[in-house]
């Protein structure tokens, strides 16, 4: 759904740009292609690595390890698993809901969701290419720690622990 909005926006702006200045539009498209081509090898590698990881990790095993009784140990496991894998939001939320139905706890799921979206070990090469090693390390580590704070608060508010 948001894909359609994004395409429409890009399409409309592209037409407006083309009407106003053909040369500039051509230059913009060249720039768009150049930046896409630049990042393509890293993206392909990331996609395939995520594919392998998701095939190997069994959802049943995950929900067994991160049940509501697993406490902070379960939170740590969820955070670590979430940090390795990178799943887009529209898959992540139903996956998390499935984990909850299979007995995972709210705290654990909150940690999982947070690192899933904010920490990416597999995407690190792409991030390093843009921001360098130090920044990538700092951002991922602080997001990882932040996931525990989110887990703690969600645990209190939603599950009432």
């Amino acid at each position, binding site marked *: 759904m948001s894909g359609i909005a994004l395409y429409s926006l890009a399409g409309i702006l592209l037409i407006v740009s083309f009407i106003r200045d053909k040369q500039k539009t051509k230059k913009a*498209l060249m720039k768009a292609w150049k930046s896409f081509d630049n990042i393509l090898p890293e993206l392909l590698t990331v996609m395939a690595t995520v594919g392998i990881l998701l095939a190997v990790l069994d959802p049943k095993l995950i929900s067994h390890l991160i049940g509501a009784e697993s406490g902070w140990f379960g939170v740590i496991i969820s955070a670590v698993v979430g940090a390795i894998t990178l799943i887009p939001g529209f898959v992540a939320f139903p996956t*998390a809901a499935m984990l909850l139905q299979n007995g995972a706890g709210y705290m654990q799921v909150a940690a999982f969701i947070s690192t899933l979206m904010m920490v990416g070990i597999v995407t690190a090469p792409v991030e390093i290419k843009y921001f360098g090693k*130090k920044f990538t390390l700092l951002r991922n580590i602080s997001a990882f720690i932040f996931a525990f704070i989110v887990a703690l608060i969600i645990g209190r508010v939603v599950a009432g622990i």
Partner: protein
Amino acid sequence: MMKQLKRFKYFGVVVLVVTALTLFNKALGFKAVSLTGSNLKEMLLTLPPVFILLGLLDIWVPREAMVKYMGDKSGMKGIVLSILLGSAAAGPLYGAFPIAAVFMKKGVRFSNIVIFLGAWSTTKIPMLLFESSSLGLRFAVTRLLIDIPGIIIIAYLISALMSKEEIETIYANAESL
């Protein structure tokens, strides 16, 4: 040609791993390939408009305008704008990196770029409804309320931990991308 191939060397390694996995366990190998396929499909669906938009942004929006709204002296306005821009997007985090690079070229303040990345990664307004229907309204709203201050604190923390030279190197690198 060699140079082109060399860029894809890590991808080649991963393809070899998948091939080995398939030989070792056919079902697992096929599952990995089909998951990669759906990942790629998602990437190919999200990224083209993102790159077109940032090509247009790069050509049409003058540096002065970006500096004014999101630069060093943009203050509160810059923070709010960075959160809104990041939250409005729905693509995966790696979609935000090229946009951040263009922001750097246009003189956007470093902490605002980190806020933008944080918002993009986790406060997804287009997905809020989706999140509440999967995990409950209470879960989604609580997460949003913790995430916004969290993102801003992380951004200022990272900015404080990076030296001026290191930040300048990242900005110079963005020029070449």
